[in-house]
């Protein structure tokens, strides 16, 4: 038997002649945690799809050895039976079913006659929860009772129940709070001690550094290098990933800040399903001309809901008094928000940002299409001219503006969505997690653009779960916790600890 649990050799995968993977090797020893890094579009997800037989044996070249034997799996089921379980970035839980039912989905414990053996399943589920240090979870309750952090752990319980020997975690912490992330990392360490190996795909290099033994970097479908984690620092990893050194992750630029320009007063949002619960509880804040206002807080604190209320798209009942340039405005739909100069780049790009089947160009001009039309007839040349200008300005990488946008990488999609929301010439731009799932290079370009925009007098509200980003970019930081405004800080010498303390609701009166 070889020393490796998994040994992928020379994996090549092409899509209609375009090589997504070009001879990649990946080796994992039993009980080892390997960090897999690379910019978006580097081929990480494709590699994992090859491994888990989403792309069945025969649709790619190369060899996979699993516990010393060649693995030729045609279905996901076969790889799961071998002990390879993938946990996707978007969780695959059924919210209406109970925790136990989710854990056992597809391998239910049955009584004779096909009935579900609930008592056995609950017992096993409770054991798993205890193993994952979540003994307080009621396994009979529907999954929607629990937050993102718990759900991630429930996914892991599901994987453990399948007797996984290798867990693949795709961006496991992208929607977790700091505390939840810590718990998850602890559990990964714990699993390591029990001999379960892990491949962790993440953009968050500090987490990779905290938990991984080995780091493997790929770039443009090629293997750049595999090194032991000890002795690497994040700058080195970034250099390997992008092939160049980005010295300053946050290209902060000085820019003048004007008078108060936009004001939201008494914003309150009621929960859609439970109107007694306030998702946003009477928040008021101001925004100056040319200011970047960071909005920090834990996931689920009500930041996105606040943005939705301002943009007129909160699905439940809500109240908001908005003032723009000294006048009170009423916003009852995204349409009226856009017309009055407020634009939103939503958090969930796939669901709310892009129209997947339409071209990159059509996506970019969507909000202002009428400006390129007379009597409802589009002037294609005029439109195309603007599209090419936007594509050039944002450096969106696409072979043609007619190409459906879903074929682009996350970073390029995000740039297209940003261009779309810039064309109406907004006065206030709300960016909800503008760099989520975006690679390092594109992130940098987005920050540059934000500074360019505020210099032109635009005001930006940036919601972000990444504290370094909030502190690196913002002029002022609002901290939201449990639907309430917990702090309003000028970003001078502000530290992550201060913001976190405020978000957690402690000593917010110490706020500057």
């Amino acid at each position, binding site marked *: 038997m070889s020393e490796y649990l998994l040994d992928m050799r020379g994996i090549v995968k092409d899509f209609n002649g375009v090589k997504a993977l070009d001879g990649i090797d990946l080796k994992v020893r039993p009980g080892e945690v390997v960090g897999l890094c690379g910019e978006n579009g580097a081929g990480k997800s494709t590699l994992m799809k090859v491994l888990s037989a989403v792309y*069945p044996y*025969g*649709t790619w070249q190369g060899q996979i050895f699993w516990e010393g034997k060649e693995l030729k799996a045609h279905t996901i089921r076969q790889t799961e039976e071998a002990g390879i379980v993938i946990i996707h970035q978007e969780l695959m839980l059924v919210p209406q079913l109970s925790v136990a039912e989710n854990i056992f989905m597809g391998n239910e414990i049955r009584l004779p006659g096909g009935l579900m053996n609930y008592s056995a399943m609950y017992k096993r589920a409770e054991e798993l929860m205890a193993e994952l240090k979540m003994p307080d979870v009621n396994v009979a309750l529907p999954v929607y009772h629990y937050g993102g952090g718990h759900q991630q752990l429930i996914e892991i319980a599901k994987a453990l129940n399948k007797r996984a020997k290798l867990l693949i975690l795709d961006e496991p912490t992208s929607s977790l709070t700091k505390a939840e992330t810590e718990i998850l990392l602890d559990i990964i360490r714990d699993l390591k001690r029990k001999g379960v190996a892990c491949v962790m795909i993440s953009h968050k290099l500090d987490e990779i550094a905290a938990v991984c033994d080995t780091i493997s970097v790929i770039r443009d479908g090629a293997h750049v290098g595999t090194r032991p984690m000890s002795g690497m620092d994040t700058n080195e990893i970034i250099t390997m990933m992008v092939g160049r050194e980005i010295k300053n992750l946050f290209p902060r630029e000085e820019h003048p800040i004007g008078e108060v320009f936009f004001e939201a007063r008494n914003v309150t949002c009621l929960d859609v399903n439970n109107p007694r619960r306030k998702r946003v509880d009477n928040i008021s804040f101001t925004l100056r001309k040319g200011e970047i206002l960071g909005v920090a807080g834990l996931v689920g604190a009500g930041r996105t809901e606040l943005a939705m209320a301002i*943009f007129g*798209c909160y699905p439940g009942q809500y109240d908001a008094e908005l003032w723009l340039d000294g006048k009170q405005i009423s916003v009852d*739909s*995204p*349409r009226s*928000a*856009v*017309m009055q100069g407020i634009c*939103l780049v*939503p958090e969930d790009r796939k*669901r*709310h*940002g*892009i*129209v*997947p*089947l*339409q071209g990159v160009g*059509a996506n970019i001009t*969507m*909000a202002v*299409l*009428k400006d390129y*039309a007379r009597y*409802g*007839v*589009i002037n*294609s*040349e005029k439109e*195309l*001219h603007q599209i*090419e200008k936007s594509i050039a300005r944002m450096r969106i990488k696409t072979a043609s503006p007619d190409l*459906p946008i879903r074929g682009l990488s996350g970073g390029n999609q995000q740039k297209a969505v940003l261009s*779309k*929301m810039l064309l*109406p010439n907004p006065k206030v731009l709300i960016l909800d997690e503008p760099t989520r799932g975006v690679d390092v290079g594109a992130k940098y370009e987005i920050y540059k653009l934000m500074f360019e925009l505020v210099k032109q007098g635009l005001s930006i509200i940036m919601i972000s779960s990444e504290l370094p980003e909030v502190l690196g970019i913002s002029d002022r930081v609002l901290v939201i916790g449990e639907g309430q405004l917990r702090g309003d800080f000028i970003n001078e010498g502000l530290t992550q600890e201060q913001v976190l303390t405020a978000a957690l609701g402690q000593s917010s009166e110490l706020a500057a």
Partner: protein
Amino acid sequence: MAIGTHNLKRFFSQYKILALLFAIAVIWLFFGQLTDGAFLTPRNFSNLLRQMAITGMLASGMVFIIISGEIDLSVGASLGLLGGIAAIMDYTYHFPVPVTIVTVIVLGVGIGLFNGYWVAYLRVPSFIVSLAGFLAFRGLLLGLTKGTTVPLESPALVMIGQAYLPTMFGNLLGLGLFALMAVLTFRTRSGRAQHGLAVSPLWQDAVKLVVIGAVIVGFVYTLNLYEGIPVPVLVTLIILGIFSFLAKQTVFGRRIYSVGSNLEATRLSGVNVRMVKMLVFGLMGLMCAFAGLTTTARLAAGSPSAGTLGELDAIASCFIGGASSRGGVGTVYGALIGALIMASLDNGMSMIGVESFWQMIVKGAILLLAVWIDVISGAGSER
């Protein structure tokens, strides 16, 4: 198996339109063979197109409904209702023909907008709204006609369904159409060049124009060998032209596709998505009015059973013509080619004496096959 479906998939996604034309050629040759050429005469060609025209009108409206991610099961019933109203206005109340036509069109658009309002603003699923219409409109028609057939009185109204364009006029029309296509092609070229954009090679556009010219000549010549271009066919072709333009070149057309592909993203871009949906149903209503008038004129009577199952033919045509059951994808010409395939099957099977129950089974099988092809070749199957 895996490789087989993969190749099939690639073939169909790249050459969908060629595959459809190929299917038509096969069907025509097949029936031509079995009928000793009777199927392929100019007379039958003219018949075939007239048969296809009504389904084609409905399919032209339906394709937008399907692209926007909805469905309309009520179109057969509203076709019947509108045709019945036309007959009653003409025969019972002796309204002048223009008044009848305008009233029916206004009513048709009204019915469509009414359906659309329920779907877009009151948020009842379109399947349910149109199922309700399917029952209610047919019921209304039976009530109005008391279950009897109402004959037409005005010859002018009958002409809508039965007249032919004079040969000379047909030739001029063909010539005009070709000139228009040529002008449009060169305008696009010069427009793109002016903005410094890539222009396709001249020979490519030239070949395209030659093919278009050949199709127009063949079409007009064949129909002129019989009686000329039938009026309903002309109307359908005009609808094809206008709707294709609407789909490609107008704000409204672009909106329909984007609503169907991702409603939420479209709404969050500041588009009034409800209005778009309602108007799509309004357009469908307009097509029901055209189809209703044509049906009544063709039969020279308003029949209480007119348009029965018309919605299913229209829906099937759209799917055969490449519209996606997931929304966001489809073309008007595709829907019309779908309608032509359905009409060819109907016409051919009737000519060789296939019993009508077989015809229904064959059409059902074709619909299933068409959507299956969409599913395996289509967008999103890799996700």
